[in-house]
């Protein structure tokens, strides 16, 4: 009896040990990954949750938080400055993605046609803006556009044409910003497209030549269709970046004249950090996040698509 008890007890201890060992084994990885999740919770999830909460409230950063329900959103949808900023951001996004991507494609294709040494030099030249601080780019272009001392006006006057108020004329400020943005993004986009071009097998072009393609038909019927996944990637990442654009217009024009270049991110900043309306700013941030989410969804949907050879 005593032996049976001892065996039973031994078995229990073994089971307990095994169970404990398995539990320890299962729990062991968690402390190692916990720092990330704790940091993620504190620095990402909580601020997001707080921002969601604030979008339904009014808070000036100093006094009490007052719950408002959906008032911030109803005010936003009737706020002409919000719609203006949304419209400006849409124009910038649409123009820069379409014209910028077309320009980058053209540039990448042309660079593939020239001598390697020249192409390398030109690639460095076009890629330089991508590794230059946006602040530096903004200030350089601001100098170029200067009404009194800028390069463009000096050029115009040299040609006998009247100088322009590039950054203070409401009809010229947005085009001036768009030119700078396209210039700044051209090198990066063309680099990605170049990578896409080089992934197209030579055999396809050889087959095309057998079928009698010329430069144009080769580009139209072979290069462009096979470049589609790369172009979609460039387009969609561009859309996501441009919806949140802040620094470049902020430095070049400050959103002026009269909000003609004010993007949604700049308006959000003004409302939150200049006017201390953190609730309203959070509501704008929610809408901006929604737009970003839709863009990201489109990204996932489109980038999945593959070219068919």
């Amino acid at each position, binding site marked *: 009896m005593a032996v049976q008890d001892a065996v039973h007890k031994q078995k229990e201890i073994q089971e307990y040990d095994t169970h404990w060992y398995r539990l320890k084994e299962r729990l062991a990885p968690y402390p190692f990954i916990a720092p990330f999740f704790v940091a993620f919770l504190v620095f990402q999830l909580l*601020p997001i949750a*707080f921002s*969601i909460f604030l979008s339904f409230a009014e808070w000036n950063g*100093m006094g009490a938080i007052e719950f408002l329900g959906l008032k911030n959103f109803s005010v936003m949808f009737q706020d002409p400055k919000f719609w203006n900023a949304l419209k400006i951001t849409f124009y910038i996004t649409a123009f820069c993605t379409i014209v910028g991507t077309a320009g980058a494609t053209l540039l990448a294709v042309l660079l593939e046609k020239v001598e390697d040494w020249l192409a390398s030099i030109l690639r460095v030249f076009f890629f330089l803006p991508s590794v230059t601080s946006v602040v530096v780019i903004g200030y350089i272009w601001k100098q170029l556009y200067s009404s009194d001392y800028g390069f463009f006006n000096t050029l115009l006057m040299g040609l006998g044409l009247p100088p322009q108020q590039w950054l203070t004329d*409401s009809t010229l400020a947005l085009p001036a910003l768009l030119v700078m943005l396209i210039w700044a993004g051209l090198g990066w986009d063309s680099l990605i497209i170049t990578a896409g071009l080089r992934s197209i097998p030579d055999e396809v072009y050889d087959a095309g030549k057998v079928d009698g393609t010329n430069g144009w038909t080769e580009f139209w019927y072979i290069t462009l269709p096979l470049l589609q996944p790369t172009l979609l990637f460039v387009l969609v990442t561009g859309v996501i970046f441009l919806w949140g654009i802040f620094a470049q217009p902020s430095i070049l024009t400050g959103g*002026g004249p009269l909000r003609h270049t004010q993007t949604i991110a700049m308006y959000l900043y003004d409302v939150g950090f200049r006017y201390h309306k953190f609730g309203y700013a959070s509501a704008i941030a929610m809408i901006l996040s929604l737009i970003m989410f839709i863009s990201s969804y489109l990204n996932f949907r489109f980038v999945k698509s593959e070219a068919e050879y």
Partner: protein
Amino acid sequence: MKIKFLLLTTLVIASMILATGCAPAVTQPSAPTEAPGATEAPAGENRTVTVWGFVWTADWLDAIAPGFEAEHPGVKVKVERFEYDPYQEMVLTTLASGQGVPDVVTLDPMWAGDLIRGGTVLPLDKATTELDVADFVPAGWNLYAWQGVQYGIPLDLDFQLVFYRKDVYDKAMATLGMTEFPTTIEDFRTLATEVTKETGKPALLLSQGDYYSWYQSFLAPMGGNLINEQGTEYIFNNDKAVEALQLYSDLANVDKTAKLWSTDVDGDATVALKGGDAMAILNGSWYATEIASGAPEMQGQWAIAPVPFGPEGRPNDAATGGACLSIPTQAKEPDLAWEFIKYSMTPENQAEYFRIVAGVPSLKTSWTDPALDEVNDFFGVPIGRSVADWSLRAAPMQLPSLEVADLIGEAITKATTGESTAQEALDEAANAAPPLK
């Protein structure tokens, strides 16, 4: 699936509650109340009073700190210096979060209004009994009084002056038979027209979309203001304001004697003045130092005068701003802070302020200091004395929120670029302004 959803919902709600709990608690402002003597540290125990200032103001705070420490054994003054641009956000973030709040904070009139109305600084109840209010320039003192309560003690007086090319203007004045710089709108317009005619350049640079400049130099001397006396209604779209904005626009567009200049877009105005592209500019007295260092080769060519944009016999020539010292609501050492502010307001320390910052102090007894009579090499006159005398004819600015300041700035741009009439632009701004509470 339901359990997961419940867990997720619980997590989100818990996060929101936690986040709400993280928001700073609202504390009722109260004046320092400790008994006299509470500012001296007990033997063996050190106390620190933390003081925040920006650029030159911080240099001055650094200079007077040892004197305060000597008068208060066991007390250390910790001066923290900031550049001007990031200072506003630093003050707002710190005062709002309640973390790392200084005991004394320097406020700037460009953004102090929101902080005062937000209850982030203490009412200085002892100010009227422990300081000689009559010794302060009224406009400076009243600048930081809101609804009859004092929230800051003024340091300097910052109102706009005309900085003009003496050689050019004197010649034009001689042509017109004028013996002194104009003091009325009509006389100035006549002179500016002559200057432009003689030089072919704008007689004056005006800041584009700058509410501060328009308010100080046009609206206030022409009898207007931002808010009515009861504090219940915006009045920056009334007849006087429309007239002031119309004049601002007419100088540039009708007389064509002024050029609208945006520092953000056009760059440093001193470059234009140095290049002879404009013959005068409106700016605060601090600009005397700026132009002297930016264009040293033009020494002797410049002069200053009060702004002339008002009717004859007007009560003031400009509205004044200027920095102040305040005590944050969540200061750890409010009594020490008040003692420090009182100490900083002695005539000697205020004269030291003038020597370091070059801004004329609001405290009149400090004006007896010989430093104010020193002749400025660049202008050839004692600028400090002139500015001090003129400050007595300044009105206190009202401190609007930044949102209202931006709206007025947009109205100025709309009216001067012809997008709207002055009345339409100001009406639009007044209608879009947040309600007064």
